[in-house]
Protein backbone atom coordinates (compact mmCIF):
# COMPACT_ATOMS: atom_id res chain seq x y z
CA UNK A 1 0.00 0.00 0.00
CA UNK A 2 1.25 3.46 -0.86
CA UNK A 3 2.79 5.61 1.82
CA UNK A 4 3.14 9.38 1.69
CA UNK A 5 6.46 9.28 -0.13
CA UNK A 6 5.31 6.87 -2.82
CA UNK A 7 2.08 8.82 -3.30
CA UNK A 8 4.05 11.99 -3.96
CA UNK A 9 6.43 10.10 -6.28
CA UNK A 10 3.43 8.71 -8.10
CA UNK A 11 2.17 12.24 -8.71
CA UNK A 12 5.40 13.16 -10.47
CA UNK A 13 5.82 9.89 -12.35
CA UNK A 14 2.27 9.24 -13.50
CA UNK A 15 0.98 12.76 -14.20
CA UNK A 16 2.34 14.13 -17.48
CA UNK A 17 4.05 17.50 -17.21
CA UNK A 18 4.18 17.56 -13.39
CA UNK A 19 7.31 19.15 -11.94
CA UNK A 20 6.60 19.52 -8.21
CA UNK A 21 4.09 18.35 -5.63
CA UNK A 22 3.42 19.07 -1.96
CA UNK A 23 0.97 17.88 0.69
CA UNK A 24 0.06 20.91 2.78
CA UNK A 25 -1.87 21.58 6.00
CA UNK A 26 -3.86 24.71 5.20
CA UNK A 27 -4.61 25.69 8.76
CA UNK A 28 -0.94 26.06 9.66
CA UNK A 29 0.61 26.40 6.19
CA UNK A 30 3.06 23.58 6.89
CA UNK A 31 4.08 21.16 4.14
CA UNK A 32 3.85 17.56 5.41
CA UNK A 33 5.71 16.31 2.36
CA UNK A 34 7.25 17.79 -0.78
CA UNK A 35 8.84 16.41 -3.92
CA UNK A 36 10.40 18.15 -6.91
CA UNK A 37 10.78 21.88 -7.08
CA UNK A 38 14.43 22.79 -6.78
CA UNK A 39 16.39 25.95 -6.24
CA UNK A 40 14.39 28.01 -8.75
CA UNK A 41 11.06 26.92 -7.25
CA UNK A 42 10.87 26.89 -3.44
CA UNK A 43 8.05 24.48 -2.66
CA UNK A 44 7.88 25.40 1.04
CA UNK A 45 7.22 29.01 0.12
CA UNK A 46 4.67 27.97 -2.51
CA UNK A 47 2.95 25.69 0.01
CA UNK A 48 2.70 28.40 2.67
CA UNK A 49 1.50 31.02 0.16
CA UNK A 50 -1.13 28.80 -1.37
CA UNK A 51 -2.70 28.14 2.03
CA UNK A 52 -3.77 31.79 1.84
CA UNK A 53 -5.49 31.05 -1.48
CA UNK A 54 -7.37 28.12 0.01
CA UNK A 55 -8.28 29.89 3.25
CA UNK A 56 -9.46 32.96 1.37
CA UNK A 57 -11.72 30.90 -0.88
CA UNK A 58 -13.12 28.95 2.08
CA UNK A 59 -13.82 32.21 3.93
CA UNK A 60 -15.53 33.69 0.89
CA UNK A 61 -17.74 30.64 0.62
CA UNK A 62 -18.64 30.92 4.29
CA UNK A 63 -19.54 34.61 3.83
CA UNK A 64 -21.69 33.69 0.85
CA UNK A 65 -23.38 31.00 2.89
CA UNK A 66 -22.41 28.31 0.39
CA UNK A 67 -22.64 24.88 1.99
CA UNK A 68 -20.66 23.30 -0.84
CA UNK A 69 -17.08 22.05 -0.66
CA UNK A 70 -14.05 22.90 -2.77
CA UNK A 71 -12.92 19.97 -4.87
CA UNK A 72 -10.00 21.65 -6.58
CA UNK A 73 -8.61 25.06 -7.54
CA UNK A 74 -6.79 25.67 -10.81
CA UNK A 75 -4.44 28.57 -11.35
CA UNK A 76 -3.34 29.10 -14.95
CA UNK A 77 -0.04 30.88 -15.59
CA UNK A 78 1.48 31.51 -19.01
CA UNK A 79 3.75 28.50 -18.79
CA UNK A 80 2.50 26.55 -15.75
CA UNK A 81 -0.63 25.22 -14.19
CA UNK A 82 -0.94 25.11 -10.41
CA UNK A 83 -3.53 22.66 -9.21
CA UNK A 84 -4.78 22.57 -5.62
CA UNK A 85 -6.82 19.58 -4.57
CA UNK A 86 -8.43 19.49 -1.12
CA UNK A 87 -8.41 16.14 0.64
CA UNK A 88 -11.81 15.15 1.96
CA UNK A 89 -11.19 12.80 4.85
CA UNK A 90 -13.51 12.39 7.80
CA UNK A 91 -13.51 15.19 10.30
CA UNK A 92 -12.05 17.54 7.68
CA UNK A 93 -8.33 17.03 8.10
CA UNK A 94 -7.53 20.34 6.44
CA UNK A 95 -5.00 19.17 3.88
CA UNK A 96 -4.48 19.86 0.19
CA UNK A 97 -2.29 18.46 -2.56
CA UNK A 98 -0.49 21.13 -4.52
CA UNK A 99 0.70 20.16 -8.00
CA UNK A 100 2.81 22.22 -10.41
CA UNK A 101 2.48 21.34 -14.09
CA UNK A 102 4.31 22.43 -17.21
CA UNK A 103 1.55 23.95 -19.37
CA UNK A 104 3.08 22.69 -22.62
CA UNK A 105 3.22 19.05 -21.55
CA UNK A 106 0.24 18.70 -19.23
CA UNK A 107 -3.18 17.29 -19.92
CA UNK A 108 -5.41 18.99 -17.40
CA UNK A 109 -8.29 16.54 -17.51
CA UNK A 110 -5.94 13.61 -17.04
CA UNK A 111 -4.04 15.40 -14.30
CA UNK A 112 -7.25 16.01 -12.34
CA UNK A 113 -8.28 12.42 -12.77
CA UNK A 114 -4.91 11.07 -11.63
CA UNK A 115 -4.72 13.42 -8.69
CA UNK A 116 -8.14 12.31 -7.51
CA UNK A 117 -6.96 8.71 -7.55
CA UNK A 118 -3.74 9.44 -5.65
CA UNK A 119 -5.65 11.51 -3.12
CA UNK A 120 -7.67 8.39 -2.28
CA UNK A 121 -4.51 6.74 -0.95
CA UNK A 122 -3.92 9.50 1.59
CA UNK A 123 -7.43 9.95 2.92
CA UNK A 124 -8.38 8.69 6.30
Amino acid at each position, binding site marked *: *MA*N*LETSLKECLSSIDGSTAVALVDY*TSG*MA*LGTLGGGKDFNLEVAAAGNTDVVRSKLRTMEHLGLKDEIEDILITLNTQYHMIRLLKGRGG*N*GLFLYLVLDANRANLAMARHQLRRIEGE*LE*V
Partner: protein
Amino acid sequence: MTRVTTTWTAYETTAEALAALAAEGATGALSGERGIVYLKAGRVVHVESAFAPDLGALLTRSGAVPPDGWWEAVDRGGTQHRVGHRLVDSGRLAAGALEVCHLGALFDAAYFVLAHDGRAQRFRPGAAHWLGAVRSVPVDVVVRESGRRRALLDRIWPDPAIDTLPLTRVPGTGSAALPVRRGRTLTQVDGVRTAAQIASALACRTYHTLVELRRLAADGLVRAAPPAAPPLPPGPPPRAVVWDDPDTALLRRLRDALEAL
Protein backbone atom coordinates in the same frame (compact mmCIF):
# COMPACT_ATOMS: atom_id res chain seq x y z
CA MET B 1 21.19 1.92 22.52
CA THR B 2 22.79 5.25 21.77
CA ARG B 3 25.46 6.50 24.08
CA VAL B 4 24.49 9.96 25.19
CA THR B 5 27.27 12.26 26.23
CA THR B 6 25.29 15.48 26.16
CA THR B 7 24.48 17.02 29.44
CA TRP B 8 20.95 17.82 28.26
CA THR B 9 20.16 19.07 31.75
CA ALA B 10 22.36 22.10 31.08
CA TYR B 11 19.79 23.67 28.76
CA GLU B 12 17.10 26.12 29.78
CA THR B 13 14.38 24.79 27.47
CA THR B 14 13.19 21.44 26.16
CA ALA B 15 13.76 22.70 22.61
CA GLU B 16 17.44 23.40 23.30
CA ALA B 17 17.93 20.07 25.06
CA LEU B 18 16.26 18.39 22.09
CA ALA B 19 18.56 20.13 19.62
CA ALA B 20 21.61 18.97 21.59
CA LEU B 21 20.34 15.38 21.70
CA ALA B 22 19.57 15.51 17.97
CA ALA B 23 23.11 16.67 17.22
CA GLU B 24 24.34 13.54 19.02
CA GLY B 25 22.00 11.30 17.03
CA ALA B 26 20.41 10.22 20.31
CA THR B 27 17.60 7.68 20.69
CA GLY B 28 15.21 7.90 23.61
CA ALA B 29 12.39 9.84 25.24
CA LEU B 30 12.75 13.41 26.48
CA SER B 31 10.09 14.56 28.92
CA GLY B 32 9.13 18.22 29.07
CA GLU B 33 6.58 19.88 31.31
CA ARG B 34 3.72 19.15 28.93
CA GLY B 35 4.64 15.95 27.15
CA ILE B 36 7.25 13.58 25.82
CA VAL B 37 9.31 13.73 22.63
CA TYR B 38 10.59 10.41 21.24
CA LEU B 39 13.83 10.49 19.28
CA LYS B 40 15.33 7.86 17.06
CA ALA B 41 18.85 8.46 15.74
CA GLY B 42 18.43 12.17 16.41
CA ARG B 43 15.10 12.58 14.59
CA VAL B 44 11.66 13.02 16.13
CA VAL B 45 9.55 9.89 15.64
CA HIS B 46 6.69 10.67 18.01
CA VAL B 47 5.42 13.28 20.46
CA GLU B 48 2.67 12.85 23.00
CA SER B 49 1.01 15.36 25.28
CA ALA B 50 -1.98 15.16 27.59
CA PHE B 51 -3.14 18.43 26.03
CA ALA B 52 -3.65 16.94 22.57
CA PRO B 53 -5.67 13.83 21.67
CA ASP B 54 -3.42 11.01 20.53
CA LEU B 55 -3.46 9.14 17.24
CA GLY B 56 -5.80 6.47 18.62
CA ALA B 57 -8.39 9.06 19.64
CA LEU B 58 -8.19 10.77 16.25
CA LEU B 59 -8.51 7.53 14.29
CA THR B 60 -11.28 5.95 16.35
CA ARG B 61 -13.34 9.09 16.98
CA SER B 62 -13.37 9.95 13.29
CA GLY B 63 -14.52 6.43 12.48
CA ALA B 64 -11.46 5.78 10.32
CA VAL B 65 -10.58 2.76 12.45
CA PRO B 66 -13.14 0.96 14.67
CA PRO B 67 -12.10 1.01 18.36
CA ASP B 68 -11.82 -2.81 18.33
CA GLY B 69 -9.41 -2.61 15.44
CA TRP B 70 -7.27 -0.02 17.17
CA TRP B 71 -7.07 -1.98 20.41
CA GLU B 72 -6.34 -5.18 18.57
CA ALA B 73 -3.40 -3.46 16.89
CA VAL B 74 -2.24 -2.12 20.27
CA ASP B 75 -2.58 -5.57 21.88
CA ARG B 76 -0.74 -7.41 19.15
CA GLY B 77 1.79 -4.81 18.10
CA GLY B 78 2.34 -2.84 21.30
CA THR B 79 5.05 -4.94 22.91
CA GLN B 80 7.05 -5.07 19.67
CA HIS B 81 6.56 -1.35 19.04
CA ARG B 82 4.71 -2.10 15.82
CA VAL B 83 1.17 -0.78 16.34
CA GLY B 84 1.37 1.42 13.25
CA HIS B 85 2.57 -1.48 11.11
CA ARG B 86 -0.22 -3.69 12.46
CA LEU B 87 -2.88 -1.18 11.46
CA VAL B 88 -1.53 -1.05 7.92
CA ASP B 89 -0.79 -4.79 7.61
CA SER B 90 -4.28 -5.71 8.79
CA GLY B 91 -5.66 -3.54 6.00
CA ARG B 92 -7.45 -1.16 8.35
CA LEU B 93 -5.62 1.90 7.12
CA ALA B 94 -3.58 2.91 4.09
CA ALA B 95 0.07 3.59 4.89
CA GLY B 96 -0.19 7.12 3.51
CA ALA B 97 -3.27 7.87 5.60
CA LEU B 98 -1.53 6.60 8.74
CA GLU B 99 1.50 8.80 8.04
CA VAL B 100 -0.67 11.87 7.47
CA CYS B 101 -2.59 11.26 10.72
CA HIS B 102 0.58 10.49 12.64
CA LEU B 103 2.31 13.68 11.49
CA GLY B 104 -0.80 15.63 12.44
CA ALA B 105 -0.79 14.18 15.96
CA LEU B 106 2.99 14.63 16.25
CA PHE B 107 2.96 18.34 15.44
CA ASP B 108 -0.18 18.92 17.55
CA ALA B 109 1.50 17.46 20.63
CA ALA B 110 4.83 19.15 19.83
CA TYR B 111 3.14 22.55 19.99
CA PHE B 112 2.30 21.97 23.64
CA VAL B 113 5.67 20.52 24.58
CA LEU B 114 7.80 23.09 22.77
CA ALA B 115 5.82 26.29 22.25
CA HIS B 116 5.37 27.10 25.95
CA ASP B 117 8.61 25.62 26.90
CA GLY B 118 10.23 24.96 30.25
CA ARG B 119 13.23 22.92 31.29
CA ALA B 120 13.38 19.31 30.10
CA GLN B 121 12.76 17.05 33.08
CA ARG B 122 14.06 13.65 32.12
CA PHE B 123 15.70 11.73 29.31
CA ARG B 124 15.32 7.97 29.04
CA PRO B 125 18.02 6.74 26.64
CA GLY B 126 16.88 4.01 24.28
CA ALA B 127 13.19 4.37 25.10
CA ALA B 128 10.88 3.83 22.12
CA HIS B 129 7.17 4.52 21.73
CA TRP B 130 4.83 1.56 21.36
CA LEU B 131 3.38 3.00 18.16
CA GLY B 132 6.61 2.19 16.38
CA ALA B 133 8.30 3.91 13.46
CA VAL B 134 5.86 5.65 11.14
CA ARG B 135 7.69 8.72 9.92
CA SER B 136 10.46 10.82 11.36
CA VAL B 137 10.95 14.57 11.27
CA PRO B 138 14.13 16.60 11.92
CA VAL B 139 14.17 18.27 15.34
CA ASP B 140 14.68 21.77 13.93
CA VAL B 141 11.56 21.41 11.74
CA VAL B 142 9.45 20.42 14.77
CA VAL B 143 10.85 23.24 16.93
CA ARG B 144 10.40 25.84 14.17
CA GLU B 145 6.85 24.72 13.38
CA SER B 146 5.86 24.82 17.07
CA GLY B 147 7.11 28.39 17.36
CA ARG B 148 5.37 29.39 14.15
CA ARG B 149 2.08 27.95 15.40
CA ARG B 150 2.39 29.83 18.65
CA ALA B 151 2.91 33.07 16.71
CA LEU B 152 -0.08 32.33 14.45
CA LEU B 153 -2.34 31.58 17.42
CA ASP B 154 -1.17 34.65 19.33
CA ARG B 155 -1.92 36.79 16.31
CA ILE B 156 -5.55 35.62 16.45
CA TRP B 157 -5.91 36.11 20.23
CA PRO B 158 -2.93 36.30 22.59
CA ASP B 159 -4.26 34.19 25.45
CA PRO B 160 -2.48 30.82 25.86
CA ALA B 161 -4.90 29.88 28.67
CA ILE B 162 -7.42 29.03 25.93
CA ASP B 163 -5.19 26.11 24.89
CA THR B 164 -5.20 24.26 28.18
CA LEU B 165 -7.91 25.38 30.64
CA PRO B 166 -11.59 24.35 30.68
CA LEU B 167 -13.52 26.74 28.46
CA THR B 168 -16.83 28.44 28.97
CA ARG B 169 -19.15 30.54 26.87
CA VAL B 170 -19.37 34.21 27.72
CA PRO B 171 -22.90 34.71 29.11
CA GLY B 172 -25.30 36.78 27.06
CA THR B 173 -23.67 36.13 23.72
CA GLY B 174 -25.30 34.31 20.85
CA SER B 175 -23.82 32.13 18.18
CA ALA B 176 -25.68 33.65 15.23
CA ALA B 177 -23.96 33.93 11.86
CA LEU B 178 -20.86 31.94 12.77
CA PRO B 179 -19.08 30.01 10.06
CA VAL B 180 -19.93 26.31 10.16
CA ARG B 181 -16.67 25.03 11.70
CA ARG B 182 -16.56 27.74 14.35
CA GLY B 183 -20.21 27.18 15.23
CA ARG B 184 -19.59 23.46 15.57
CA THR B 185 -16.66 24.13 17.89
CA LEU B 186 -18.72 26.55 19.99
CA THR B 187 -21.41 23.90 20.61
CA GLN B 188 -18.77 21.81 22.40
CA VAL B 189 -17.81 24.57 24.85
CA ASP B 190 -19.58 23.68 28.09
CA GLY B 191 -17.58 25.14 30.96
CA VAL B 192 -15.90 21.79 31.64
CA ARG B 193 -14.07 20.63 28.56
CA THR B 194 -10.64 21.76 27.51
CA ALA B 195 -9.47 22.34 23.96
CA ALA B 196 -8.04 18.80 23.84
CA GLN B 197 -11.38 17.29 24.88
CA ILE B 198 -13.24 19.43 22.35
CA ALA B 199 -10.82 18.38 19.60
CA SER B 200 -11.30 14.76 20.60
CA ALA B 201 -15.10 15.06 20.63
CA LEU B 202 -15.06 16.61 17.16
CA ALA B 203 -12.41 14.11 15.94
CA CYS B 204 -10.60 17.20 14.77
CA ARG B 205 -6.90 18.01 14.87
CA THR B 206 -5.99 19.96 18.00
CA TYR B 207 -4.27 22.84 16.22
CA HIS B 208 -7.33 23.37 13.99
CA THR B 209 -9.51 23.39 17.09
CA LEU B 210 -7.18 25.86 18.84
CA VAL B 211 -7.47 28.21 15.85
CA GLU B 212 -11.28 28.13 16.03
CA LEU B 213 -11.29 28.53 19.84
CA ARG B 214 -8.90 31.50 19.76
CA ARG B 215 -11.13 33.09 17.09
CA LEU B 216 -14.16 32.50 19.31
CA ALA B 217 -12.23 34.11 22.18
CA ALA B 218 -11.30 37.05 19.94
CA ASP B 219 -15.00 37.41 19.04
CA GLY B 220 -15.79 37.60 22.77
CA LEU B 221 -17.80 34.37 22.76
CA VAL B 222 -15.51 32.07 24.72
CA ARG B 223 -13.11 32.45 27.62
CA ALA B 224 -11.18 30.24 30.00
CA ALA B 225 -13.50 29.02 32.76
CA PRO B 226 -12.99 30.67 36.13
CA PRO B 227 -11.18 28.43 38.59
CA ALA B 228 -13.37 26.19 40.74
CA ALA B 229 -15.05 27.91 43.69
CA PRO B 230 -13.17 27.60 47.00
CA PRO B 231 -14.53 24.95 49.35
CA LEU B 232 -17.47 26.06 51.46
CA PRO B 233 -16.70 27.11 55.02
CA PRO B 234 -17.54 24.44 57.58
CA GLY B 235 -21.18 24.54 58.52
CA PRO B 236 -24.06 22.20 59.22
CA PRO B 237 -23.71 18.96 57.21
CA PRO B 238 -25.75 18.92 54.00
CA ARG B 239 -29.15 17.37 54.22
CA ALA B 240 -30.02 14.01 52.67
CA VAL B 241 -28.32 13.47 49.36
CA VAL B 242 -30.60 13.83 46.37
CA TRP B 243 -29.69 11.03 43.99
CA ASP B 244 -32.13 12.17 41.30
CA ASP B 245 -29.74 14.86 40.19
CA PRO B 246 -26.40 13.33 39.21
CA ASP B 247 -23.43 15.61 38.76
CA THR B 248 -23.33 15.36 34.98
CA ALA B 249 -20.33 17.64 34.70
CA LEU B 250 -18.30 15.40 36.99
CA LEU B 251 -19.47 12.27 35.20
CA ARG B 252 -18.50 13.74 31.86
CA ARG B 253 -15.07 14.65 33.15
CA LEU B 254 -14.67 11.17 34.57
CA ARG B 255 -15.72 9.62 31.27
CA ASP B 256 -13.29 11.79 29.33
CA ALA B 257 -10.48 10.95 31.73
CA LEU B 258 -11.21 7.20 31.41
CA GLU B 259 -11.38 7.44 27.65
CA ALA B 260 -8.13 9.31 27.61
CA LEU B 261 -6.35 6.48 29.44
